[in-house]
């Protein structure tokens, strides 16, 4: 009895040791692994101005979303880290600046001076501030002073009283048709399988008035709307194959039965040709689109490719995206259409940037970069060797820009002149910059550096605004010299 008691205690002690080792191992692991990025997990944010994805990270089993990632598309953001204190200044267009304050590892913060309690600890990862996904609605409603609807499970966030609602109307007949009418045009991804047709809405804030409907119809038997993984999905079921047609400029989808497959041709018993069905109208050729003047702005880097570290908490990718949006806005103010090659924090390879830019066929390509050294603004055209200069008949990939160097130089000179007018330090140079060499059209690159000794001043809103205005004014001044391009 005494021996068995001793064994029992020994085993208990060994178990204690194993537990302690486990705790030590867990502690070691936790000291190196803080955050996991769920594969492809992102929050779809819909606002009146735009819709965009915000990446989610997993911290201690809870989804977190970055404050900058959510707020930046909605206005001007200036985030700073002071030790464990995180301060973010946000200015919505036409509104006054307001401040958000949080502390790493604490669940309390302040927005506009008012206390807020998060449903988890505020976290700082790689210099960026993250709040629990479950708290983002509260944070945004106080920041933006508007109604927020969050479906955390479905990863969908609606800012303001928006939502593209739809109604379903089954028109019985032979065959029956289901009319799905939306408030505004939609462009869903459509997938079909026997007895199902599924519409997936990624960019549109589609919301249903009713989630589930059942029909007693020989063809269409039901419709179900669901939200998951940042998308809205409308699944229509039927007793046979279904097809969809768009009407009313994309505001209505008409679901009907798909025509049966053509009968197999039997050579021994040829079937006389059938007259074409009356309802089939031959497609009318679209008139060719006319030439247009589009400026494509390419904010460099993105995603895991952060570019230069302007400061420990300010990566180049964030600075250039903010400046690119300002340039786009300033160009629009001058009546010039402008698009962004990336409008969120995503990684795009250099070759893919060039491929996308050349496919869009912009009248002008502007790459935006930022540096943590030097002062002012550098305006670059492509550095190409004299022997690579070619005619426009054949453009090698590595030196496609060579045929457009004169026009690119005119744009660069005009932008530099506008910078000079605004007394912004600037220099015009050539650079061996990728993917500018691969762009088949006028192209310039802008590298912005801080206007002062303090590198963080690079994201100063007034400074960026001045630079953006100079770039836009420079482009507008030479617009008549740059040929419009047919898309």
């Amino acid at each position, binding site marked *: 009895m*005494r021996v068995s*008691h*001793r064994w029992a*205690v*020994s085993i208990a*002690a*060994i178990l*204690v*040791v194993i537990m*302690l*080792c486990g705790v*030590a*191992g867990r*502690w*070691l692991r936790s*000291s190196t692994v803080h955050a996991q990025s769920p594969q492809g997990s992102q929050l779809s944010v819909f606002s009146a101005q735009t819709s965009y994805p915000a990446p989610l990270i997993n911290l201690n089993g809870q989804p977190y979303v970055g404050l900058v990632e959510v707020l930046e598309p909605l206005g001007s953001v200036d985030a700073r880290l002071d030790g464990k204190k995180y301060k973010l200044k946000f200015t919505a267009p036409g509104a006054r600046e307001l401040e958000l304050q949080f502390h790493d590892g604490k669940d309390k913060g302040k927005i506009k001076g008012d206390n807020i309690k998060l449903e988890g600890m505020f976290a700082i990862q790689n210099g960026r501030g993250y709040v629990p996904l479950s708290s983002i609605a509260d944070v945004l409603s106080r920041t933006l002073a508007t109604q927020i609807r969050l479906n955390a499970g479905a990863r969908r966030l609606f800012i303001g009283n928006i939502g593209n609602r739809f109604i379903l109307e089954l028109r019985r007949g032979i065959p029956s048709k289901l009319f799905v009418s939306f408030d505004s045009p939609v462009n869903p991804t459509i997938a079909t399988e026997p007895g199902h047709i599924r519409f997936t809405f990624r960019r549109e804030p589609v919301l249903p008035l009713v989630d589930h409907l059942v029909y007693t119809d020989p063809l269409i038997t039901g419709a179900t709307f669901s939200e998951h993984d940042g998308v809205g999905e409308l699944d229509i079921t039927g007793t046979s194959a279904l097809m969809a047609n768009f009407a009313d400029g994309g505001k209505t989808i008409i679901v009907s039965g798909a025509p049966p497959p053509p009968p197999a041709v039997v050579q021994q018993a040829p079937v006389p040709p059938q007259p074409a069905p009356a309802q089939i109208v031959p497609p009318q050729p679209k008139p060719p689109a006319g030439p247009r003047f589009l400026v494509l702005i390419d904010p*460099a*880097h993105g995603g895991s*490719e952060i*570019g*230069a*570290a302007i400061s420990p908490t300010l990566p*180049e990718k964030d600075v250039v995206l903010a400046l690119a949006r300002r340039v786009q806005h300033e160009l629009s103010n001058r009546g010039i259409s402008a698009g962004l090659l990336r409008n969120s924090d995503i990684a795009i390879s*250099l070759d893919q940037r060039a491929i996308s830019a050349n496919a869009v066929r912009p009248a002008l390509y502007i790459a935006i*970069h930022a*540096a*943590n*050294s*030097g002062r002012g603004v*550098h305006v*670059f055209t492509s*550095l*190409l*060797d*004299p022997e690579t200069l070619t005619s426009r008949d054949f453009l090698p990939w*590595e030196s496609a820009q060579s045929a457009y160097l004169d026009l690119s130089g005119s744009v660069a000179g005009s932008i530099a002149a506008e910078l000079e007018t605004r007394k912004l330090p600037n*220099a015009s*140079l*050539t*650079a*061996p*910059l*990728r993917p500018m*060499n691969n762009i088949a059209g006028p192209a310039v*690159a802008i*590298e912005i550096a801080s206007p002062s000794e303090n590198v963080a001043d690079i994201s100063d809103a007034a400074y960026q605004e001045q630079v953006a205005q100079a770039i836009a004014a420079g482009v507008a001044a030479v617009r008549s010299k740059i040929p419009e391009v047919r898309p």
Partner: protein
Amino acid sequence: MTRPILLMFLVLLLIAAGLGFYAYHLKSRVTSEEQRLAQQSQVILPPASGPTALVTFYIASDAASSLRRSQENVALPQERSERARAILRALFNKYAQTPSPHPIGAGSDVRDIFLLGSDTAVVDTNAGFAGSHPSGVLVEELTIASIVSTLNANDPQISRVKILVDGKERDTLAGHADLRRFYFSNGIGQLLKEPR
């Protein structure tokens, strides 16, 4: 509880505490090893042996966004590619000093230089050169221009330069400057403040 059992329990507790201490020690060692590696990469490169010769450097300046010419006596080997390598190592050595007019990645080095024909030099840099080079359009261009101009100034036959990293071709130096191409000494001279 009998005395032997108590003793055994204490021993096991000590073992547990020891394991905890060992785990802490391992963690500290990893941290100090990382720090040591970071410091090790800042060692000053050893000079080459051989008779000294007057070498022309084109030193990049981030503040002035340009290259400035300077001359210095450097010990150089006789063989042409070894000479070129020694010159570039001396150039990198200047950038590694504190304060530096143009800091480049700590531990940057030239592994080898291959001369192709009479006019082309292929400069094989180590991984640290590109891995820790400051990122930026101008700052990367200045480094390349400094390498190309310095090589050409000391061996005028070298007019084409290609830069490899760790023996391989690389897309860009640090996210901006194209490393897939050859650089011509007469095409990158816009940054020179003083003529050759």
